[in-house]
């Protein structure tokens, strides 16, 4: 083996080993058994609802928290539903106003929606409300989130939030 090729081989091995460490995610810290409250500066509670729902940063934070608190686990990454009802359509079982959605998240609902009021700070719940509203295309377009935290899967159009017109007859479902 020439010096040059052994150097190359050595480099490749080093890179491979580093890569291994890179890929081998460490989870040495014991995993939390309840959702952690994130330490962050909360905005004043008197902030009007509009400050959250018309705020691109809130919506994008809500998108992140939607994954973090496992909302996505039941309602799916883009709100199509699964264990929980879909959030992309025009049906709102417990009301679709920002205040009603907020209450649903805070208190939970009897048929399976857990209460998150004791585990999530209020401003984050408002951010989640903003993101939930965005799923059914109910926010101004300029505050909509960008690329979602979901698989592109080689078909980006499927995962961009398709705009669906919100039907006038809210509350009914075909």
């Amino acid at each position, binding site marked *: 083996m020439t010096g040059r090729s052994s150097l190359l081989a050595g480099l490749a091995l080093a*890179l491979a080993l580093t890569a291994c460490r890179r890929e081998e*995610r460490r989870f040495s810290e014991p995993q939390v*058994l309840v959702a952690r409250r994130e330490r962050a500066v909360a905005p004043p509670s008197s902030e009007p609802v509009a400050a959250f729902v018309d705020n691109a940063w809130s919506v994008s934070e809500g998108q992140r928290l939607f994954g973090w608190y496992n909302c996505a686990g039941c309602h799916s990454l883009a709100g*199509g*539903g699964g*264990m929980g009802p879909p959030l992309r359509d025009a049906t709102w079982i417990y009301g679709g106003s920002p205040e009603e959605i907020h209450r649903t998240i805070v208190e939970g609902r*009897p048929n399976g929606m*857990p209460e998150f009021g004791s585990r999530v700070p209020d401003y984050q719940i408002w951010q989640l409300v903003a993101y939930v509203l965005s799923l059914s295309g109910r926010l101004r377009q300029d505050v909509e989130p960008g690329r979602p935290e979901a698989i592109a*899967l080689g078909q980006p159009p499927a995962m961009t939030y398709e705009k669906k017109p919100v039907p006038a007859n809210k509350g009914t479902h075909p």
Partner: protein
Amino acid sequence: MRLLRKGIFMLCGVALACHRRPPPAPPAQAGSTVLRDARVHQAAPSRVNGEWTKVAGDDQNTRYSPLAQIDAGNVARLDVAWSFKTGIERGHEAAPLVVGSMLYIVTPFPNRVHAFDLTHPGAPPRWTYQPPNEPRAQGVACCDVVNRGAAYDEGRVFFNTLDDHTIALDAATGKELWNTKLGDVNRGETMTMAPLVVQGRVLVGNSGGELGVRGWLTALDAATGAIVWRAYSTGPDEDVLIGSEFQPFYPQDRGKDLGATSWPPERWKLGGGTVWGFVSYDPELDLIFYGTGNPGPWNGEQRTGANKWTSGIFARRPETGHAVWFYQYSPHDVFDYDGVNESVLVDVDTAAGLRRLLFHADRNGYLYVLDRATGEVLSATAFGHITTSHGVDTKTGLIAYVPEKEPHVGATVHDICPASPGAKDWQPMAWSPKTHLLYIPHNNLCQDEEGMEANYVAGTPYVGAAVKMRAGPGGKRGEFAAWDPLAAKQVWHIEEEFPVWSGALATASNLVFYGTMDGRFKAVDAQSGKLLWQHQLDSGVIGQPVAFRAPDGKEYVAVLSGVGGWAGVIVPAKLDASDPTGALGFLNAMRDLPSRTKAGGTLYVFGLP
């Protein structure tokens, strides 16, 4: 960045050390030498009176009826004798039971039990029982709020509720005899499986492998409901009921506390291995057999190791629960390949004498033939399209995974076949001792998947994957196949548009029954697969058909319609298919189902005029 990451991942693959995988095994053998000259042992018929007292018909899980009145010559005239709407429009996966002159069904949540009197025309309801329940259980059921049926023994009907109770009713009156709480919905635990009663013990297991639930099988005293034993699927030997009797066939399953040491510290506590499939029983070996569910979370990077005792099969003593052997179909599963699919017990005669076998069609795509006395794998043959592994080495018992198909956080892996519901999910197959064939309802699905870090929040999903499923090769999502397990080959198959999510039933007149998700209930010729009869029902069929002889002396075939389950939940829950990752990725493959059927819930009983 994405390219760089991909490059690093490839280097990692070259360095092998990252993966700790066995070298590829040769392709699965077509039947082992042991089986080449084996002949099915003709056992005396276990049932002659025309009842159907267990979900699978018998302890061996054959789903074979010895009745033969309805046959190829008259099945074309088969029609609805009577029907009953349950009033619950969710996935109906249960099998009716017939004991004496009564027919029993258990519905999806809220888990009502109905008893019908077969001695009167139209079979009027005799009694109905509605258990108390916790509605929030619906929010932690991974895959619709299904129930797979009840059990009967000595005048009692036993069933599980979604909110983790096992309840015994007086079969004659519907009066509650006992009600034992076994789990906690706040931790994501539910119960969906059908119990099996063995030696006065009611065997029940839990569901919730997608919610960080720790799996178990529990035996209850049939008379009192008291817990006799509980065997966990993960954790130290003491919890798993592994002791001096434990003699697994393969060396990788021998050692102390493997259910804890084959995980990162403490991870087994959230490790899955739930027990939600069917249990089989061999009275001569005095063993029960059942599979364990997938390890949790799906994201395997969060749980390095073999993750015992998930995605495998236990043989245990029914009296004590002590483990006798274990075999792991999918060590360190990363695809949600639960090992819970039923085991069908069949004996064969070989040159060396009687051999007791077990047939099992796994989510991972292989049809296994095991020696059920020892846990030795005699053959493992692909019955579906597989890209995630090369084969199973019957000498070592090890499956040879394809490392490139393993999902990683931040990377999307394409063409994972079979998809997470497997080549076959829970939908139970039938065995005919006449044709010596298995009748396998199954799936033809592949998926793309991106790993994500799963964050444990009690009572919410603990998965760590974004999945998008679609039809496998050929474009049809389902198949109904006749399979010769000794020759290890398919004999015939019927392609179906949707996954065949119903159970199968074989009868002595060489008819085989199954249903489709778009609501057609079919009878086909057991030898050829030729369609002999079909009937359009009000909703898709994901239930388990059964055959019985009523007090009028006539044979009937009963099945529940009511589309749902993981595959069909899009219909009753009105999910939004514009999100392809909905329903854990199943939504993408089932967008057209709502236009082909509607939600429902009806018991249909078919007879000859």
